[in-house]
């Protein structure tokens, strides 16, 4: 493999140029973030306001609802619960997918089955399929067995949703390992378990972490399954976002923007840390370099 990372160098002039383009590209996001700091009249001002007095009201509004009549204490909203749900559901299902997926990926990589690549193909297809295709039968199935609106149901579903991605990702890491070390260890009488836990797993540790985080990102913004299969107590943030849309006063853009901004922060930092693994992540491990 010809690998020359010697890409062209450029100075601050290029930074200025790239900066302008990047800011133009980033502008819609910038506008959302700005809206989060605007009052309701400012958010819908004509002409649009680029300069305004920032307010934190929207962020407060995410967590507390002002009581209009009676002047009692502000009432807490369910948002902390939805944030918790998003993190909990995504976290547990990604962890489960990582464990089951890593074991399977090791199998696919080291002990190929008859028709190994066919299995891999079918697995990838299940991920490429539009969610709308499977959501109908899953919706009916969950209704039959009472999993609708439960944590167990949505977690199990997201585990399956993340598995194809995890298997393809982790297998690509296992495939890259130098098998000579394993062969040498095998000659020295290492058991299969020692090979897996002692030799292979430590070498792909960083890859596993990246896979886990990418799984989180993919699950984080999932909307359709969550919309149809979560209940009042298990609702995730994207569904809650959509629910702020219906209202007598019209869409409260400031409030929605505040939710979007808060929801973007964790994923933004994680992506920043994983920049070098990004390509592999977004292509499900099918493209390495």
């Amino acid at each position: 493999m010809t690998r020359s990372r010697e890409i062209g160098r450029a100075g601050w002039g290029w930074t200025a140029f790239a900066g302008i383009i990047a800011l133009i590209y980033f502008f819609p996001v910038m506008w959302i973030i700005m809206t989060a700091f605007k009052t309701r009249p400012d958010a819908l001002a004509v002409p649009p306001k680029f300069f305004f007095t920032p307010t934190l009201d929207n962020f407060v509004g995410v967590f507390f609802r002002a009581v209009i009549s009676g002047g009692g204490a502000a009432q807490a909203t369910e948002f902390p619960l939805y944030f918790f749900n998003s993190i909990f559901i995504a976290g547990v299902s990604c962890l489960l997918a990582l464990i089951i997926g890593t074991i399977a990926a090791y199998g696919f990589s080291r002990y190929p089955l008859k028709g190994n690549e066919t299995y891999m193909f079918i697995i990838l297809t299940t991920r490429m399929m539009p969610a709308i295709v499977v959501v109908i039968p899953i919706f009916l199935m969950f209704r039959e067995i009472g999993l609708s609106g439960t944590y167990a149901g949505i977690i199990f579903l997201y585990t399956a949703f993340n598995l194809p991605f995890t298997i393809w990702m982790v297998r690509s890491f296992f495939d890259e390992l130098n098998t000579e070390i394993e062969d040498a260890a095998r000659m020295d009488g290492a058991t299969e378990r020692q090979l897996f836990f002692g030799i292979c797993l430590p070498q792909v540790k960083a890859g596993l972490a990246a896979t886990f985080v990418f799984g989180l990102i993919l699950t984080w913004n999932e909307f359709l399954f969550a919309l149809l299969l979560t209940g009042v107590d298990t609702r995730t943030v994207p569904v809650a976002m959509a629910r702020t849309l219906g209202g007598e006063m019209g869409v409260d853009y400031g409030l929605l923007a505040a939710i979007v901004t808060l929801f973007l922060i964790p994923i933004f930092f994680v992506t920043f840390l994983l920049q070098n693994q990004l390509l592999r992540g977004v292509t499900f491990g099918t493209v390495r370099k």
Partner: protein
Amino acid sequence: MASSAVVAHEIRSEGGFLPWLLAPQRRGPLLVAPALIVLFLMNIFPLLWSFGLSFYNYSAKKRDVPDFVGLRFFERVVTDPVVWERFKTTAIIVSSSVLMQLVVGFLLALLFAKQFPLRRILLMLVLTPMMLSLVAVGVFFKLFYEPTFGLVSQAVAMFTGDRYALLGSPTGAIIGVVIADAWMWSPFVMLLVLAGLVSVPKYLYEAAEIDRTSPWRRFQTITFPYIKSLLLLAVLFRTIETFKLFDVVYILTEGGPGTATETIGVYVYRLAFQYFRTSQSAALAYIILFVVIVLTSLYLYAVNRRAQEVD
């Protein structure tokens, strides 16, 4: 039956079920079994179920026993002009969006193919759209396109003095959807093209420099061969993903005006959850599944070709 008898015999002769299960020749199947079981329960089984449903006249709203109708729903879906209309809409949106993603992604990649100060941070700015929730993109692009308060309308009004409702006309709505989708996913294409640009050995450019080759010729003979398989990958991957387009369209235009932006994804959703024609939606879902299988095999073919080139 014969094979199960053989297995039973093997189990006995190897001294119990556990040692039989853990024998070396069963290691591969054993490792992949949990994953396959989960996938079977959550993906394959529901698909088979809906395959079954598509042979019956079933509606999720009714509780009566569905009657067997055979291939009627498949027949209805295939001969339904509305379905073909939706496929056409989807094809138009997918092809224009993927084309736009390619152009924008390629230009962005050229921008970031150099090493310059603050590159990592500026790159993050460009990657952010990919991380946004689809709901957020849908709602805020709807706001941008809105005739009274929207930025687009007000920018147009500066020149024409009139408000501008982009989503009001069928063509405008398609353009609106395509821009939102392409804006979100061009960074993805950029990442792929960037990988291709980085893999071009520098000495080739140096040689071209000495030969005083024109930039266009340099691109044709050096750069393009290195990125072409990745471009193919990008096209296929984005086609598969854009084919699913549902959330953004649903929030942005709800398929309108009329049915101008009603993609096949939105149509299946409507069939299943608004008209409660469960069986018909299941039959249609199968046709989508077929398309996705074809596209995925093409994609993997491209992946393998790229892998061979790199090695």
